[in-house]
């Protein structure tokens, strides 16, 4: 078994973008609580095994509501990417220009995050892994950094 722990770092931008985080609810609490511990925890459908994100009350594949929380690795491949050249949020201003990747996780869903160590243009298929960024106000968000190897590497 791999250790699913993710590196937890301070937020790389300026100030605190905590106001942008989703409101904590009974439904998404397990996700954010896990993130605070450096773990990526996704809902896995009791009926069909589909791992889903964002947090949802029922499986988008089969409609069954029962699900268990599963720790997954946060490793994946770049599915697509863009680069912000215009600042929309003051907290991200010092990071300009920054790359946001859409990552196909090895464990199912796709997730977005800033590519924290982007050096030039990413390439579709590049291996990346998730890191957690801790906001000054205590919330957590995710970012990605370059990873190595295939499903069991990096």
């Amino acid at each position, binding site marked *: 078994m791999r250790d699913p722990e993710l590196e937890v770092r301070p937020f790389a931008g300026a100030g605190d973008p905590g106001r942008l985080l989703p409101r904590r609810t009974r439904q998404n609490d397990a996700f954010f609580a896990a993130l605070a511990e450096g773990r990526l925890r996704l809902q896995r459908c009791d009926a069909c095994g589909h791992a889903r994100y964002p947090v949802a009350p029922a499986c988008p594949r089969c409609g069954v509501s029962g699900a268990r929380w599963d720790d997954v690795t946060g490793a994946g491949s770049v599915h697509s990417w*863009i680069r*912000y050249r215009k600042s929309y949020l003051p907290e991200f201003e010092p990071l300009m220009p920054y790359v946001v990747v*859409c990552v196909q996780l090895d464990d*199912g869903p796709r997730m*977005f995050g800033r590519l924290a160590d982007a050096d030039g243009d990413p390439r579709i298929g590049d291996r990346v892994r998730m890191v957690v960024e801790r906001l000054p106000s205590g919330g957590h968000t995710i970012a990605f950094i370059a990873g190595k190897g295939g499903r069991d590497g990096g």
Partner: protein
Amino acid sequence: MRAPMTQGDYEASRFVVEPLRLLDCSVPVDTAVAIVLTRDDRARDLRRRPVYLLAFQGIHAGPGEFIFGRPGLGINQVDGDDWEPLGREEPVFRRAGVAPEDVGTLHCYDGFTPQVLWTLERFGFCRPGEAADWVQGGRIGLGGELPVNTSGGHLSEGHANGWGHTLEIVRQLRGEAGERQVDGLRVAQWATTLGDSIIYANARP
């Protein structure tokens, strides 16, 4: 915007969110458009020639598809399945009794340039992934096989959430589009990447 845009103008415009440049983005405007919608029997003796609405469909939603969330059409997050557009199987064509090749001019939601390509693929004017090649050589210009957004659309005329397109469709089907007129036009379509669409004609169905 009225001045012709060159490839050089485009490449000189700054990136906003790469790969989209300023000239990939629509032009914000304040505007107003009014449309009078009534029954066929009432429209018949009006002074202005009516345009007929053959069929429409709304934004598609479901377990695997929600607004801005469809693989190939935007954010790509909901699932990792390969998704192919319905193309000519979109219900609006069946309801209107027409096929994509019957559409004489397409007017599509173009907040950003890629949405034009996605709409062409979604509604079956070309195969998935082929729109960028398909539009080459004036195919979607005036006099081409499928004139698209003849009034300039959001990208050039101004972003009025489709109302400018609707006004242009009415002008086109009435034969009142002047130098932008599509010759011999019978059927016009409004469509977006999210699946909503309206098909209009210049004569009663």
